[in-house]
């Protein structure tokens, strides 16, 4: 079974309908403004475990939703909000 995300507008849909959107977080330890820009643009936390991420429902309502997902088990906590 493909990974399912429940869109607040369209109901449960498979992951193929969505586009991934990261929430980039630049660590406070990086202070140089140029380095912060590079980190923001390219570097990833790539967290193992629970992570909060954004998904864009491209082949549906074309709205963004926020999802909590475990990157090891792919367990999903229901989207808490949309905006």
């Amino acid at each position: 079974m493909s990974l399912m995300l429940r869109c607040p507008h369209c109901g449960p849909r498979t992951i193929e309908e969505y586009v991934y959107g990261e929430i980039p977080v630049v660590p406070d330890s990086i202070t140089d403004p140029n380095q912060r820009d590079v980190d923001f643009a390219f570097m990833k936390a790539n967290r193992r475990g629970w992570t909060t991420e954004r998904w864009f429902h491209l082949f549906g309502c074309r709205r963004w939703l926020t999802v909590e997902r475990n990157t090891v088990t792919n367990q999903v906590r229901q989207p808490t909000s949309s905006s």
Partner: protein
Amino acid sequence: MNEFMEAQVRLSWQEARDSYDVVIIGGGGHGLATAYYLATRYGITNVAVVERGYIGSGNSGRNTTVIRANYGLPESVAFYQRSLELYRGLEAETDRWLMHNEMGLFWMTHTETGVRQEKMRAKLNTAMGAITDFVTPEEIHAMCPEIDLEGGGRYPVLGASYHPQGATARHDRVVWALAEGAMRHGVAVLQHRTVTGITMVGDRVTGVQTDHGPIGAGVIVSCVAGQSTLIADMVGLRLPIRSHPLQAFVTNHYQRTFNHIVASVDLATYVSQTARGEMLIGAEIDRQPSYSYQSSFDFLQSTAAKASMFLPFLKDLRILRQWGGVCDMSPDSSPVMGTTGIDGFYISTGWGTWGFKAIPAGGESMAELVATGETPDLIKPFRLSRFADDRVLADAGSSGTQQ
């Protein structure tokens, strides 16, 4: 590896010592190749390869074993062509049969823009030493009549770039041959030992912590796949890497020889025949970043549908087994290798879905870097600092995994 194979390839395991000049994290193709070339080219043998499972149990045992150099950027073509040439000589050099088989690879396209792109690829590759020709549908049919040029009615084949040196090799044998060659020179390969931390004094690494005790190291090379971020986190290094699962599957055996690798750029699907006669089919990475090795039914369904559009005989076969691996995807679909800004800590990562073909050149380049302290010209373009320098090497179209 089972006992029979261990007897065949004469691997000599050692007890761990307290410290080594070089500790390589990850006993897959890249880690063992680095150790192999350090030992054979530079005589550096006080080396340990630390592997959390058994050798080749990570992505080296989970890939689709395609060796090719038909990339889209001059830097990439030069690097992968070097790797392809090293592969050609590796059987003679290691005196081990790697089942290396130059089948020739069709890189097919189904769009007019794709035709222009493949013509350009053929020119660029040829200029950089990787033999590639643009072939028309008629020529494709003459060489490989199994391909349905109508593409199941939906994806007509408009042409392909043909790469005659495209090859496959048996992944386990590559890993074992490199391990055996390194061990013969005294390299220690430590299996079932997980690196849990990296010790540092100031800005310099001094050793690794493992679940079986610490090991001192003059130099640490991370050749980890899938979990590179976890290693980089140990030294506070930020990487442009996201882990994505990649799946593949084989069918039961096709009772005729199919001596080609056939890939569709637009469908991001590729097919070849294994030495056992199974048809090996791979496609693009999973959408969600994940460390999960789970394979899924809908991957089988969508990929089988795509592959059988251009190779209709696949419809008569059945799927035998499927598997997944976790790939280090870089933002520009090019590897990340070399120095890290941390003294004594080198990294070889970002191998995404293109790591197997790069094993010899990756190992050779990392060995040269470790031995001489100088980054070889061949891998300078792939440095980690290219992102800060605004010199990204965007080549997703050559990886076969574009999203």
